[in-house]
């Protein structure tokens, strides 16, 4: 039983990591109806920029600030160069544009900082929490717990922002109906700049945590793919959904690996989430918390 809990907790905490990436997707999808394929590349670019500046001898907080600034500028440029000329185009066009954007961001980031794998140090050790080890004999990583804490904070902030602020409301309005938002004087460009900046910030946080765990390398961009089943489970439009989806994916993939893996020869955790997502699509295509498509008949 102890082992079960250890696996479960480890799974839940690693699920939080998926949630980080999923959050970035949800933000942009909610506000502009665009599935931003470039979110993974943004995570990579953010982490690389941070590490790059740190290597130049810039102190931690300043590097963090600079990396955030770079992400904001990236967001604003994306709005100006990619999104604005495509206003009122079908979603698939915008989606294709973000695929293109992925390569541009990856290329720029690697061009600027090189393609080496780098380590990232946040000052929190990836070691078991002692008192939990002693009292319950369950090993839980300090780092994972820290990640979960950051996620909880981030989600609370974002949820409050979307639900109760003027800008947050405008963001949701824009997501629902561009034209109507425009007609009541909501400046779309400004709103999109804000969303991309916030998504850039979330990408930075995700990049730092993932980078600290697995090192900053090109493979960070693939974390985006793990976010897909999380989104399908939680719903593309729900911030809490991204978190709950992440927790479910994280825990089930680890449990499946441990308890089912041996029957099929292991390696189950790399594809199990996709099977779950597929099954979920059949039952509840809008996800657990996604907005139901409202159709008047």
């Amino acid at each position, binding site marked *: 039983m102890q082992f079960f809990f250890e696996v479960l907790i480890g799974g839940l905490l690693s699920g939080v990591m998926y949630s980080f990436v999923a959050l970035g997707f949800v933000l942009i999808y909610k506000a502009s109806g665009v599935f931003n394929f470039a979110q993974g590349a943004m995570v990579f670019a953010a982490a690389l920029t941070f590490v790059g500046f740190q290597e130049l001898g810039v102190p931690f907080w300043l590097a963090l600030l600079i990396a955030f600034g770079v992400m904001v500028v990236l967001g604003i440029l994306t709005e100006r160069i990619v999104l604005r000329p495509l206003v009122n185009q079908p979603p698939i066009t915008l989606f294709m544009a973000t695929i293109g954007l992925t390569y541009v961001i990856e290329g720029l980031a690697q061009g600027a900082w090189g393609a080496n794998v780098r380590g990232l140090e946040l000052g929190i050790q990836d070691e078991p929490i002692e008192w939990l080890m002693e009292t319950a004999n369950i090993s839980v990583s300090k780092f994972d717990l820290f990640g979960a804490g950051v996620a909880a904070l981030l989600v609370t902030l974002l949820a409050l922002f979307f639900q109760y602020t003027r800008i947050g*409301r405008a963001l*949701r309005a824009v997501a*629902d109906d561009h*034209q109507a938002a*425009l*007609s009541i004087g909501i400046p779309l460009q400004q709103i999109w700049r804000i969303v991309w900046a916030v998504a850039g910030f979330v990408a930075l946080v995700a990049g730092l945590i993932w980078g600290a765990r697995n090192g900053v390398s090109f493979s960070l961009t693939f974390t985006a793919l793990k976010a897909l089943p999380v989104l399908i489970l939680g719903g593309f439009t729900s911030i809490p959904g991204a978190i709950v989806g992440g927790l479910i994916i994280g825990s089930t993939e680890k449990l499946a690996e441990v308890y089912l893996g041996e029957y099929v020869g292991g390696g189950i955790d790399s594809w199990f989430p996709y099977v779950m997502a597929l099954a979920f699509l059949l039952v509840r295509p809008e996800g657990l918390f996604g907005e139901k498509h*409202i159709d008047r008949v």
Partner: protein
Amino acid sequence: MTTTVHHAASGEPYLSVNNIEVIYDHVILVLKGVSLEVPKGRIVALLGANGAGKSTTLKTISNLLHAERGDVTKGSVDFKGVRVDQMTPNELVKRGVIQVMEGRHCFAHLSLEENLLTGAYTRSISRAELRESLEKVYHYFPRLKDRRMTQAGYTSGGEQQMCAIGRALMAKPEMILLDEPSMGLAPQIVEEIFEIVKDLNQRENVSILLAEQNTTVALRYSDFGYILENGRVVMEGDAKELACNEDVKEFYLGLSSAGRKSFRDVKHYRRRKRWLS
């Protein structure tokens, strides 16, 4: 046209559209020189059949046209003596001109109250003022208050229309461009909405430019009317006079003193009319 004298009689020109020409997608000429005026505090109806250019005229004024690949190639729009045709919708709303789009366009996943609150986006006001504006809208549309927590997508067509008008009111407009408020609504609801619009016009002194296909109702509630056909104004005049005009009766109200007429004659007449105008 002889009816232009009415402008002076009905008050100061407030919004004036001067000879605008609009082309969609660089090829489709939709408006071929439309001019009209809305005096302060009046309701002016813009009438005509499908595709006559009513919506395009409104969108030209509110500048929502650019988002639809439309271009104004000629003419100008003035509001309170300032040229506004190059302004963004955001600037226009701040100046007091707002459009209520055809087909309601409520934010389906936001509650009715949230829909209304988004309408005040362009105003930087305190919480108390916001509350006050909200109560005012609820005063005019008590139905919205009853259902304020319902997601707009789940409300009826009439409630959505009220929501759309209420949302525009939250921006504290001086001029509302109201596009086809009667669309798809039961006659009773149409009447209810027009009553409220008239009330708003009189009590809040909001000027209204109303695009409608429902000529009967529109003329009953407005002061002045323009009839558009094929991108041109073919007739204009006092709402009451228009409602009595034999041509209007025949072609837009479906009433005729001479009984039923052959469709061929009607078509012929309309073609001649276009050539002349």
